[in-house]
């Protein structure tokens, strides 16, 4: 990512808190954010896996898409708002129940991924969607959604008057019980609004670490008080962007701009699950011709996980076959604190993608052994409610 000059950097409502806590501030997605606190990436990573880490992710792009003229009939209004967003993305939004969140992909006409995003059906507002997109792509994403919504719906950005916090880890649920007890009833990938401070907070049971946890949208004026209230719990420590990256890498979750970009298709990225069955059967999403053909015949490259022996293979490192021929490239790589070894995500031809394949990575001109392994590298521990029978 290009570095933005310090003068142009935006700050989040928690900027002073990060500075006071000794956060090492770096430019990220146009914002000044802490890459780590004095405890360091390793300790912050492990704390999140064992207790609860608190992240400031206010650089992300939360928004609400609402119908201009709702009928008041919840199902009809949901169908109408789904018809606005579905032509841009890969998912079945019409089929969502109130409060349900879906991981989806914003696609271009060539079937490339313009962004990965969360789209949720409002549990409160008929014909309302809650949409969260990535920081680096949010202006383009929002423009694209607004263009599709003209005359039908309006997009309300919530990225400048709200803060977005993520509370992640096995203790997150016990901490939330003190803040918004109702939120502990949420199942994985659902959300609702709860009273807190001077307004409501919007709490989603999801995250980017592989752990159980929550993302909390809070109005800016309440953000510092909520941050402080969460940190008052001894099970909670602040965690910076460095550990956010190592946690998501261990969880095998792709990072937009690195593992995903507008040339990569969902099939290549091994995100076929993000193309809903109904959409697939109708073939009515951007780039359907390419994506459906790749599903049928296989893509020319596919995202894999690697365990690397020796030095970490970073983004851009070449992936070699056993005889040393270049076959692909690492798109995210680093040290996995929970595993004590180096791991990577990258793309190779499907013939080399079988679990257990012995490959190599080139680090500083030397070939090191690397083995294809299933992802996630560290098992997900999401809170899935048993389905009512």
């Amino acid at each position, binding site marked *: 990512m290009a570095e933005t000059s310090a003068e142009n950097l935006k700050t989040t409502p928690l900027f002073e808190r990060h500075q006071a806590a000794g956060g090492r501030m770096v430019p990220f997605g146009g914002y000044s954010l802490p890459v780590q606190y004095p405890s360091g990436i390793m300790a912050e990573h492990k704390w999140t896996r064992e207790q609860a880490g608190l992240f400031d992710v206010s650089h992300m792009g939360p928004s609400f898409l609402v119908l201009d003229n709702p009928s008041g009939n919840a199902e009809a209004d949901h169908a109408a708002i789904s018809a606005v967003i579905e032509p841009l993305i890969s998912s079945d939004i019409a089929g969502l129940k109130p409060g349900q969140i879906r991981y989806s992909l914003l696609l271009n006409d060539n079937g490339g991924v313009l962004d990965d995003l969360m789209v949720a059906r409002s549990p409160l507002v008929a014909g309302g969607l809650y949409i969260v997109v990535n920081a680096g792509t949010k202006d383009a994403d929002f423009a694209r959604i607004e263009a599709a919504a003209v005359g039908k719906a309006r997009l309300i950005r919530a990225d400048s008057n709200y803060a977005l916090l993520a509370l992640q880890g096995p203790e997150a649920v016990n901490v939330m019980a003190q803040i918004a007890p109702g939120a502990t009833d949420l199942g994985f990938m659902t959300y609702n609004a709860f009273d807190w401070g001077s307004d409501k907070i919007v709490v989603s049971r999801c995250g980017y670490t592989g752990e159980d946890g929550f993302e909390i949208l809070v109005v800016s004026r309440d953000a510092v008080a909520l941050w402080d209230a969460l940190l008052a719990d001894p099970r909670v420590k602040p965690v910076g962007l460095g550990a956010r990256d190592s946690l998501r890498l261990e969880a095998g979750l792709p990072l937009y701009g690195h593992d995903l970009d507008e040339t990569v298709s969902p099939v290549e990225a091994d995100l076929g699950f993000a193309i809903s069955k109904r959409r697939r059967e109708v073939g009515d999403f951007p780039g359907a011709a390419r994506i459906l053909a790749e599903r049928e015949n296989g893509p020319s490259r596919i995202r894999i996980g690697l365990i690397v022996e*020796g030095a970490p293979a970073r983004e851009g490192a070449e992936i070699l076959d056993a005889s040393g021929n270049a076959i692909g490239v690492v798109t995210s790589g680093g040290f996995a604190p929970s595993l004590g070894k180096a791991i990577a995500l990258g793309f190779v031809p499907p013939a080399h993608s079988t679990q257990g394949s012995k490959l190599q990575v080139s680090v500083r001109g030397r070939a090191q052994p690397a083995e294809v392994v299933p992802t996630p590298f560290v098992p997900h521990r999401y809170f899935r409610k048993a389905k009512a029978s």
Partner: protein
Amino acid sequence: MTTKFTPDHEYIRVEGSTGIVGITNYAQEALGDIVFVELPSVGKVLKKGDEAAVVESVKAASEIYAPVAGTVTEVNEALSSEPGLINADPEAGGWIYKIAISNAGELDGLLDAAGYADLTK
């Protein structure tokens, strides 16, 4: 025994004609948790400024340059299994390699403790 410093945050502790090279406390704090160290091979001949080793933190790789010219005589093998020694004890147990100094005159071009302290103020 004197210790000299580079603006790139290496130190070289001079014992006779041998230099013991590592990174400063300031450098290890800036890098954060060291998770891997690539050591030079013994016998490697280095010019001043050559890349001699690489230390990797969770986030990034950083090259360690030779403060002066010479030949690598010994490496700190303990770092292979315990790279965190650089964080815990950078200027003693976390040394990286020893070098037979080929031109002691090059030491004069390096910073002394006071000069380095000024740089990192």
